[in-house]
């Protein structure tokens, strides 16, 4: 089986928009329902009422500023919350299993075989003195019980499938000898080595050169096509999320402010924050133009705000925005917004002008 026999979806076509039912706890592979997480041993509530789901084979993007809660959400789903973080309310379900009450033994089973993860700086997740091949082979021996030879064989196959062009050579190299892009591919190989159903990628491409980033994004697409791998892709960069993801979940100050099919969110964003993100995002032609900013600062983590947490920076904030908690409303198939002014058309003209 050579690399060239593998097919990957045509770049131009996006997967069917109906890649899953609406957000919320309606099942699927991974499902977070009304999650509340507090940090610093309960001192501040960082995540407020997050609900999202990932269907099998779906690529879901979490986008938001640093501190918006997207990384914390990922960590909660992976069971690696830092000390002092408590899940106050809500549930995390993976393939029917409740992750909030999972034992250590349970997590050992889930990690690798059901959920894999890659993070931003691959070098810091690899032992600098052991060859990358051996690090992958070790995972295979431990988790799948493969023999030394079989593990080596499988490692080389995995390296090939993540696009490393001289896998036997790479097997014997230590992390310092590999570039950032190659290391990230190694990390992906390790993450998918035991055939998980879900891959969590937290800012996995942020530190990569742009050409390598494009290759890694293409790799993730291919892995989804070949293995039905679902991906939870976290990024601050809306452009990257727009490239890769079927659905987008927009985070702000610990809440989900908008979620829906990627194409729809990009064409018709309903939440002022999403609109602001679009205004500042990379447009792709790089000509001289007026650069936009989002004024103001996000609230402090856990800050108690009545009403919409974006109201302080929102150009359209009204009295109703500050009076009480804002419930999500539907704004299209599978498209939800947490904004009382979402239905109004004032934003459309502005966007069309862009």
């Amino acid at each position: 089986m050579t690399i060239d026999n593998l097919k990957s979806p045509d770049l131009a076509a996006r997967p069917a928009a109906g890649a899953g039912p609406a957000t919320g706890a309606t099942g699927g592979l991974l499902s977070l329902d009304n999650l509340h997480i507090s940090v610093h041993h309960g001192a501040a509530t960082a995540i407020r009422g997050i609900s999202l789901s990932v269907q099998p084979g779906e690529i879901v993007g979490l986008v938001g500023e640093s501190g918006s809660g997207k990384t914390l959400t990922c960590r909660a789903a992976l069971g690696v919350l830092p000390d002092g973080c408590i899940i106050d309310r809500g549930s995390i379900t993976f393939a029917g299993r409740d992750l909030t009450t999972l034992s250590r033994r349970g997590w050992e089973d889930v990690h690798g075989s059901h959920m894999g993860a890659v993070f931003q700086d691959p070098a810091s997740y690899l032992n600098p003195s052991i060859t990358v091949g051996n690090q992958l082979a070790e995972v295979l021996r431990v988790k799948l019980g493969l023999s030394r030879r079989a593990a080596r064989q499988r490692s080389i196959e995995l390296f090939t499938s993540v696009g490393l062009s001289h896998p036997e050579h790479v097997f014997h190299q230590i992390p310092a000898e590999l570039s950032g892009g190659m290391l990230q591919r190694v990390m992906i190989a390790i993450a998918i080595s035991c055939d998980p159903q879900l891959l969590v990628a937290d800012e996995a491409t942020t530190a990569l050169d742009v050409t390598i980033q494009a290759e890694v994004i293409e790799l993730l697409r291919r892995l989804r096509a070949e293995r039905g791998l679902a991906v939870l892709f976290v990024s601050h960069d809306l452009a990257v999320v727009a490239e890769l993801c079927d659905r987008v979940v927009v985070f702000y100050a610990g809440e989900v402010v908008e979620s829906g099919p990627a194409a729809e969110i990009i064409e018709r964003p309903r939440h002022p924050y999403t609109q602001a993100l679009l205004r500042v995002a990379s447009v792709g032609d790089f000509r001289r133009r007026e650069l936009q900013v989002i004024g103001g600062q996000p609230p402090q983590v856990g800050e108690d705000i009545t009403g919409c947490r974006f109201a302080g920076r929102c150009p359209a904030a009204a009295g109703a925005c500050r009076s009480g908690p804002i419930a999500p409303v539907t704004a299209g198939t599978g498209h939800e917004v947490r904004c009382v002014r979402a239905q109004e058309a004032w934003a459309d003209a502005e966007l069309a002008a862009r």
Partner: protein
Amino acid sequence: MSAPATQTAPLLAVESLDVVLGRGWRANQVLSGVDLAIEPGEIVGLVGETGSGKTTLARTVTGLVSPAGGRVVFEGTTISALRRGARRAERRRGHLQLVFQDPLRSLDPDMIVADIVAQGVRLQGETDREAIRQRVVGALGQVGLDASVLPRTPGQISGGQRQRVSIARALATEPRLLICDEPVSALDASNRNYILRLLDQLRTSLGLSIVIISHDLSSLAGIADRVAVLYRGRIVEDGPVDQVFAAPRHPYTALLMASAPSVRHDRELSPQQVTRTVAEAGALPEDLLAGLGGPDACVLASRCAFAAAACTVQPPLVAAGDHRRVACHRHSEWLTLARSRAAGGQLTTEGQPR
């Protein structure tokens, strides 16, 4: 830059710069034959990925690294030939300033902002406290910071503010040319645009020239007048930004644009259309492949889908239109070939081996 009959000497002229780092068997030619001219009042973007030599270029221009060949001329003086006292005196003039990439490392964590920004002014010999203070406050004002940050240390202000303090330090000596090494890489989209806009305003209000060095296009988007693309130590293309991005003449530039993530999907080419696939590499005759991978070949030859026999020799940087230059043997033909290539599906060869 090809300026046929221009009479006024450019502000900065880099002429045939060769830079070798390391000694003996570890010696590595990081820059080869780099030619660049910066005129007063323009913003030039220098784009290069990891290993392109862009940071080395910044360090060589400012004199932290000595070139092995070629020279750097600033305001008529060959600064690359200056040493010791003469070099210090030239630096104290403060007309050429470098803004480093990471303010956490380039600002002394034990110094307060007032002293940091004043450092250049004091080195110029200014001793009057009131005069120093005025220049410091003035520089901070130009970047949008008020006097409240004066008594704070870098650890006590936010990242965006740190970057601005770093810029203010460079502005305090009233420079003519500002070289910014990755000024916005670590910032999110909104902060990035803010800083870029700020640099544009400074160019207009102070008549500054600015060189922005970055690894991706979005970091100079919107404000650069000209762009030079650096790959493996050579300039492969340069010219007015609108032209270069609308119609790139070099395959690598096209690759950068094809790879850059965008919320709009209107790019003409995909990365796969300009890079050589594994299958294609296999189809090339052995000696050609070896020649394309050799040290004298075009810097892109080992990845380029259009590499031919001529490409075993590095093409010179030649004029290709109005104020444009490109270093490619096939610059007039590859685009047609690219359009007819399949847009996706094949795996490309992995990036440069170490």
